[in-house]
């Protein structure tokens, strides 16, 4: 029962997805460098593929290879992912990528000025963050021998159908596309279809949560002597539309009409002779994006190049350009903007950009020309950038244009330009919500140049969206003239730019630095005085807190802060009500009971004013003036920004009050003397909010803010000194034992057998599972559970920041090879086979943890050979898991493990531990004092 698609979109009611019991799961392996020159794939090629280890993994149905496309089909998603991470692929990088170093630079803004002969004299690369918002893409495909059905959400299902027909050698009428779920699953749909075509089974593919951003990179270079420049666009997009990544990897030469493209006429020559740039990996970029990134890169490059040559960029473009309509338009805009007039004042700048797009599908081809001049001014006080003026001219012929009044058109132009300067996500913003830039926008004056304005005033004005393309580059060029800072990444990180300006990194603002330093010093003195006071006054309780003043947005933001801070994990007793407190935290000084943080006036924080709340959070002082024990990580929460702190207060105060009085914390002398904590605070506590590091990106700062602040990772992962204070410096996140569990080192001291990467950290924090490391369990499980509710960008930021703390992978073998070696070694380790633990392992563990034999049981079944805990100096986590199992994994699909405390005695556990250590971590010394450890952890209350 399948219907044939007739239009661009296929009805959603067409066909139910295949039953889950017969749906297999796929995962794909992508090359390290993917490029497209507009016609064919030019990135890394698969030179060699060793799939022995992956193919033998339990649950794997098939390893599919088609050209440079490699994928795995298995009975469960985790098995497919794990098999992919075990694929040992050797990639052959393209020749020019090997020759020049720029491909190794993932970030935007990399500039190379190679001097070796043949290399371009002037070369820049530009980045573009494609809009990758939304859930990870998911698609299902089923090939039954004749017909291919695909369930996915795609913008253009006709294009997908034609591509699949070509790729799978089927008639278009044998390919059926059904709308399923949301988002953009174009690439994923083709992955699923290929895997299904090769296996003849229904295959579901969930796009991998990787950290490879959907960043497009475009490389531009000028060759030859200055003045006789020969430009070469090294971008993937000679056309605006690209086939799927899978189709490119299969070597598909696409024959689909190109549609709207950028005219090469500004290039003067061989627009697509060379091509060398990475293609977006995670999302199928829309036509709008592909055109926009090209215009941004090209127009920024021209400006850079000609300013470098001390020439006027607008005049130079006029000299270069061959197209008469374009020249006339640029002249008209230059005149209207008085480009040749007075030079901009300090702190002001103007920039120029131009675009010409052609739609080949029309006969004759229809075209749009547009030219923009943008004026910006920088406020020396705040570093804020204001768009003061725009001069726009455009000429559309044949393309569908919309008539509008002058006012509407001006508003439209203003809107499309000012969005580039909207506040970008800052280190303490949630969900990437940007503030409204309308106040900024209203002050932008708009001038329209000929022929945008018709000669007769009564005629309606016409506009085409293609005419908005030069806006980003015009503004970036203007910002460069005003500040000396070149922006090569769009959308702009205006916050980082602002910080850079205030730090005095630019020519105009160096005087700001000394003043800022004075303010900081004054604040630091105040902080020390406050921290050291042993007796603190009570803050008067309020009869009731007026929560009506808090907006829904503030409460929603506060909820995210609370999740990031994992408040509920510690402030909820086993089986108790959320946030009502009463959980005992075992410290070396005794048990500390968590308090009720619901807004109950009698037993909770219902009578706490914001001042009292903030003092508790930043300084560890109770409302009544008592010092709180640093088991409450106010040392980390102090770093929370003011906005987030207020939002958190708004959230907590608007929750349901619970009347519950948790047990009193009673520590032995001298720790029961709370005033002594004043001295502790003086020594170990810095109550200042997080200060962003201006030398780092917004993403890094966001990660650092979350890790050091609300996330309070160091509370568990940093070692503490004799007085219970977190050690800093090289000890930051260097590992610690807490509540009977080892919180492993996250810095360079990590004992993980395969080093953590940003991608594996992200997968672990996002899903609770990393194929090369294992699952989150013990006290880390609720942390991952909390993180699962945070926006994706936040988890990415944390992974990004944490990855910079780790030591780089010094091993020359790929991670897949390292993993294969560890797996092999653990299987072929004959020395352990006579140990008494062998039979225990076979009976109790092997059914799930035998990576080669046995059925692929439901769940992740992590590899023990790659498990950090078995390679650690301490056996604690392994003992905990053996005793108590994994009852509450981070996410239910990870699978569960039963505890063996009632079926294995201490001696059997010891035998098992000795065996597992020798088998899975033979290069590590045997664990010491196992009997005592087992006894102690068995006796300890379960956490």
């Amino acid at each position, binding site marked *: 029962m399948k219907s044939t698609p007739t239009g661009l979109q296929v009805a959603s009611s067409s066909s139910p997805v295949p*039953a*889950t*019991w*017969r*749906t*297999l799961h796929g995962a794909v392996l992508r090359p390290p460098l993917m490029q497209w020159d507009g016609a064919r794939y030019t990135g890394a090629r698969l030179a060699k593929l060793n799939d022995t280890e992956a193919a033998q993994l*339990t*649950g794997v*149905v098939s390893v599919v290879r088609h050209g440079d496309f490699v994928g795995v089909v*298995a*009975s*469960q998603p985790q098995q497919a992912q794990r098999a992919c991470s075990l694929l040992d692929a050797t990639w052959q990088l393209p020749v020019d990528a090997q020759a020049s170093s720029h491909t190794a630079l993932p970030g935007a803004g990399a500039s190379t000025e190679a001097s070796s002969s043949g290399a371009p004299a002037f070369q820049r690369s530009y980045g573009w963050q494609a809009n990758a918002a939304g859930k990870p893409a998911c698609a299902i495909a089923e090939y039954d021998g004749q017909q291919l059905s695909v369930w996915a959400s795609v913008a253009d299902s006709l294009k997908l159908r034609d591509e699949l027909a070509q790729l799978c050698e089927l008639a278009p009428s044998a390919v059926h596309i059904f709308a399923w779920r949301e988002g953009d699953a174009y690439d994923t749909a083709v992955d699923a279809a290929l895997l299904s075509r090769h296996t003849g*089974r229904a295959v579901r593919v969930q796009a991998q949560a990787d950290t490879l951003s959907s960043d497009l990179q475009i490389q531009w270079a000028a060759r030859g002597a200055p003045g006789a420049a020969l430009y070469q666009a090294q971008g993937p997009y000679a056309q605006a539309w690209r086939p799927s990544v899978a189709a490119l990897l299969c070597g598909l030469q696409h024959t689909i009409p190109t549609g709207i493209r950028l005219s090469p006429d500004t290039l003067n020559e061989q627009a697509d002779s060379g091509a060398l740039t990475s293609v977006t990996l995670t999302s199928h970029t829309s036509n709008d994006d592909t055109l926009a990134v090209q215009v941004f890169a090209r127009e920024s490059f021209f400006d850079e190049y000609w300013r470098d040559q001390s020439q006027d960029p607008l005049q130079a473009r006029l000299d270069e350009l061959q197209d008469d309509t374009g020249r006339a338009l640029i002249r008209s805009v230059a005149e209207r903007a008085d480009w040749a007039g007075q030079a901009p004042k300090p702190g002001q700048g103007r920039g120029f950009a131009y675009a010409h797009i052609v739609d080949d599908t029309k006969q004759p081809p229809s075209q749009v020309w547009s030219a923009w001049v943008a004026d910006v001014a920088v406020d020396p006080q705040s570093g804020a950038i204001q768009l003061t003026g725009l001069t726009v001219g455009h000429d559309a012929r044949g393309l569908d244009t919309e008539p509008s009044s002058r006012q509407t058109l001006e508003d439209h132009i203003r809107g499309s330009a000012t969005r580039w300067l909207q506040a970008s996500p800052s280190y303490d913003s949630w969900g990437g919500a940007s503030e409204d830039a309308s106040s900024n926008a209203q002050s932008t004056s708009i001038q329209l140049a000929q022929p945008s304005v018709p000669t007769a005033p009564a005629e309606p004005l016409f506009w085409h969206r293609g005419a908005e393309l030069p806006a980003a580059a015009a503004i970036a060029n203007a910002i460069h003239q005003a500040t000396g800072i070149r922006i090569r990444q769009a959308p702009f990180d205006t916050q980082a730019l602002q910080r850079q300006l205030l730090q005095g990194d630019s020519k105009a603002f160096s005087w700001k630095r000394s003043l800022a330093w004075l303010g900081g010093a004054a604040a630091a003195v105040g902080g020390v005085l406050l921290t050291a006071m042993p007796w603190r006054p009570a803050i008067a309780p309020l009869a009731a807190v007026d929560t009506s003043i808090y907006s829904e947005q503030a409460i929603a933001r506060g909820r995210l802060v609370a999740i990031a801070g994992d408040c509920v994990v510690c402030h909820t007793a086993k*089986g108790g009500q959320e946030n009502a407190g009463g959980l005992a935290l075992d410290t070396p000084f005794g048990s500390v009971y968590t308090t009720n943080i619901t807004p109950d006036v009698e037993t909770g924080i219902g009578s706490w004013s914001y001042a009292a709340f903030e003092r508790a959070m930043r300084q560890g002082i109770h409302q009544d003036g008592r010092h709180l024990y640093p088991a409450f990580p106010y040392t980390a929460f102090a770093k929370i920004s003011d906005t987030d702190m207020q939002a958190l207060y708004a959230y907590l105060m608007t929750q349901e009050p619970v009347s519950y009085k948790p047990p009193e914390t009673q520590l032995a002398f001298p720790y029961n003397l709370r005033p002594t904590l004043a001295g502790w605070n003086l020594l170990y506590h810095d109550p200042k909010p997080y200060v962003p590091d201006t030398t780092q990106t917004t993403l890094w700062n966001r990660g650092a803010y979350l890790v050091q602040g609300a996330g309070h990772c160091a509370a568990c992962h940093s070692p503490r000194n004799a007085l219970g204070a977190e050690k800093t410096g090289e000890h930051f996140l260097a590992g610690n034992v807490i509540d009977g569990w080892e919180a492993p080192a996250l810095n360079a001291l990590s004992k993980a057998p395969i080093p953590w990467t940003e991608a594996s950290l992200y997968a672990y924090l996002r899903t609770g599972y990393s194929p090369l490391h294992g699952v989150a369990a013990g006290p880390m499980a609720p942390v991952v559970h909390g993180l699962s509710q945070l926006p994706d960008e936040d988890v990415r930021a944390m992974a990004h920041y944490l990855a910079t703390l780790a030591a780089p992978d010094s091993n020359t073998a790929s991670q897949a090879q390292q993993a294969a070696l560890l797996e092999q070694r653990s299987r072929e380790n004959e020395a352990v086979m006579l140990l008494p633990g062998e039979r225990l392992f076979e*009976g*109790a563990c*092997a*059914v*799930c943890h*035998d990576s080669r*034999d*046995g*059925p*692929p*049981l*439901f*769940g992740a079944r992590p590899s023990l050979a790659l498990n950090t805990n078995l390679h650690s100096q301490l056996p604690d986590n392994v003992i905990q898991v053996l005793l108590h*199992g994994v*009852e509450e994994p981070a996410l*239910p*699909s990870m*699978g*569960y*493990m*039963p505890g*063996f405390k009632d*079926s294995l005695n201490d001696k059997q556990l010891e035998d098992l531990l000795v065996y597992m250590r020798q088998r899975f971590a033979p290069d590590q010394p045997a664990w010491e004092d196992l009997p005592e450890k087992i006894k102690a952890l068995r006796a300890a209350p379960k956490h």
Partner: protein
Amino acid sequence: MSRSTPLTLSVNQQTHTVTVSPGTPLLYVLRNDLGLNGPKFGCGLGECGACTVLVDGVAARSCVLPVHAVLEHEVTTLEGLGTAEAPGPVQQAFIDQQAAQCGYCLNGMIMTVQALLNRNPHPTEEQIRRELKYNLCRCGTHMEILAAVRQLAERHS
């Protein structure tokens, strides 16, 4: 222990609501609340395989799987493969080859074989043996069980 909560699960293509603690092993819910006695209690530690059911077509040891782990998934028990009057293909093959003695392990054997055939309709002898490696049987009808699976694997290829 966590409190009893109403939970909705899908078993053999039917929706059931049970009020249990979310940590209860799936096996207990199947047998005690839903009256599905195909899955057997053996070791209670996931070691013997007598309790095997399918979750989204994949074998799972229901004695160590908390019921809340399968809320978003489709559970299939022995009863979902066929009835005494109309046995499913795997059940029929086991009957054909007289693969039962005491029969206690057979639920696990049949469900595990079904999971194998779901992903690989024509397994080799080695693949069959690997798949059943961790399903324990004390009676020793291993040869008959293997013959039953071979019969299935050789069907209309």
